[in-house]
């Protein structure tokens, strides 16, 4: 193999290594980016849905106060709008949630809340204050707590996800660091081999020629291999022989 080819293979190897390490890092970074996006999306969605649910319960609560305490039944539409909004948010949460058990307490609390209101609306006007303080407030508190817990539980999984992200980030960075180490090793090896096989022989030939020209010491450079430097040495030897013959 010629010098040019060897050196080219050397540089191509280095380039290929860096390229491949870069690709692996890129794949891992894309994975990291995707995981982070999923995490952020899910977190944002959970917060938004929880907010909608709390907003809907608040609406229902306001309407119910007007209906039950003040007897203003025209608030019925607001009450129903709140109910629909809550059901819609809950249905959306059910579709997107990773673990359905996270929503169990919300479903239970919601069901109890609806039952409590439905029972009271049937017998409206009787012992409203007692019902509000004794029964309704508890059901309302349980429901809002369940929704808040759902919101917090989605945040709670962040710890595990963060560890996963840390692992992904490590896998994205480590290929570059290790490849860099290997590239440094190869560069050192490259330098050593180039020095051994090309620089030192060229210096030897130069010194041999210098000795021959200045002090007439016979050109006798010993070399191994069959590459271009070896051929150069042979050509110089032939040239010296021709000159000697011409002089003779």
């Amino acid at each position, binding site marked *: *193999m010629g010098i040019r080819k*060897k050196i080219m*293979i*050397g540089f191509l*190897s280095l380039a*290929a*290594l860096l390229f*491949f*390490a870069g690709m*692996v890092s890129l*794949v*891992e970074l894309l994975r990291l980016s995707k995981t982070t996006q999923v995490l952020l999306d899910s977190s944002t969605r959970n917060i938004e849905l929880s907010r909608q649910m709390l907003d809907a319960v608040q609406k229902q609560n306001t309407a119910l106060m007007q209906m039950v305490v003040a007897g203003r039944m025209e608030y019925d539409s607001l009450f129903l709008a709140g109910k629909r909004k809550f059901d819609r948010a809950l249905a959306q949460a059910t579709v997107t949630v990773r673990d359905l058990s996270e929503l169990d307490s919300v479903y239970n609390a919601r069901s109890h809340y609806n039952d409590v209101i439905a029972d009271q609306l049937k017998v409206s006007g009787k012992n409203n204050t007692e019902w509000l303080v004794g029964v309704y407030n508890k059901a309302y508190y349980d429901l809002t707590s369940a929704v808040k817990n759902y919101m917090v539980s989605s945040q709670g999984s962040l710890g595990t996800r963060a560890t996963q992200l840390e*692992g992904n980030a*490590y*896998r994205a960075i*480590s*290929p570059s660091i*290790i*490849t860099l180490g*290997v590239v440094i*090793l*190869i560069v050192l*090896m*490259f330098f*050593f*081999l180039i020095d*051994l*096989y090309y620089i030192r022989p060229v210096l030897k030939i130069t010194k041999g020629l210098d000795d021959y020209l200045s002090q007439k010491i016979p050109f006798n450079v010993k070399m191994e*291999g069959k590459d271009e430097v070896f051929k150069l040495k042979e050509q110089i030897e032939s040239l010296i022989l021709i000159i000697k013959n011409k002089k003779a």
Partner: protein
Amino acid sequence: MRFNVILRYIGLVLLLDAVFMLISAVISLLNHIDTGFYPLLLSSILTAVLGAFPLIFVEGGQQINNKEGYAIVVGAWIVSCMVGTFPYLLWGGEFDFVNSWFESVSGYTTTGSTILNDVEALPRGMLFWRSSTHLLGGVGVVMFALVVLPALGRTKMTLSSVELSPLAKDNYRYRSQKVVQILLTVYVGLVVAETLLLKLAGMTWFDAVNHAFATIATGGFSTRNLSIAYYDSYWIEIIIIVFMLLSSIHFGVIFATLTGKANNLFRTEVSRFYIVSLVIGALVIAASLWAADMYPSFLSALRYSAFQLMSVTSTTGFATADSTLWTPFAITILIFFSLQCGCAGSTAGGIKADRVLLAGKVMKSRIRQQQHPNAILRIKLNNVLQDNELIQSSMIFIVAYMMIVMIGTVVNTFFGVDLMTSFSVAFASMGNIGPGFGEVGSMNTYSALPDVVKLNSTLIMLLGRLEIFGFIQLFLIKWWK
């Protein structure tokens, strides 16, 4: 010393490492591209380029001298340990830099001690790579290179003189090329036979292959957190006991036995001494455990004592019981066998049964000499007269071995590790055994040890694997001139 020639041979060994990394990556690929795929693939490419680079410049077919042979063996071992850390470092998890280095050295030196608390959390490709380091280390990284290298001539003997202990070489009565062939035939034959038998006994193919790699290399990496105790199977234990025994006996003797030669397993003095001492050891430990009411019956005690004793003596390190809970007497017997270990010419580490037997004969001869001062006494081993140089080098080896164990213990205690654990870590690393006693018992890992103690252990593992002097030579500046 021609560094370029050394680089070429080390490069060939690295290419072999790269092939096994690639096979591990393929296993990851077949396992739905598990998390081990990219680390293994990248490691394979990095190692292949690193190994192939010197081959571009340095031409093959060059004769190597004795010193270069030493440098190639020790260099190949150390560089293999280094590139062996790549998959672990790239995978992450429990593997930081020190842990990766420890796991890699432990694999290549066939020690089998681990820093992993949860082995089963590793993806399949990584588990296979872990076992492959045993396979590569077991047969000797250099032996592999010798097989793949065409027309090496004298090179072979120069390299194998480092790999095999002088006693082992003395026992091989073949040409050097034949030695390599015998070693590989026996090695591969044992791996295949054990894999098939373990599969028949109920293991999955994957577990059978991994455990066969670990047994024949006398390594000890398992694919299960509970090691062999996970299977709770008499048949699996019996198969592994038999193969641990075979792997710790001179491979040339096994070959001679299989081919019907006279110098066989039952006629060789060292093999007889080794097997008889193991039988007595297992019976004595079983009696001790049974007398202490640790097991319901003598047979049950024998089942566990035989496995643990064979595991420790062959330097494999598999476990079916927590021997740290055994009686002090049983532990003492196990420590004795941990120092002696298997026979020369096998993949086992330690002082070797050959040297222990020789030391006994030297002592006997010394006593006789005092009784008959003018008598000319000669020492024979396997009916072969042992020259003074070999006897002297064996005795020096035993002294050096014990000194390193002592120094290792002192260093470990200096960093706050208790005495039993420190001593265990030192002798288990020196003998390439793996588990010891104290905090590093048969059912524990090395993860809780300080980093500096882990690094100290890896140094001792390399010293033990390269029979002390082979490793030390490399670091003597005068030697390089």
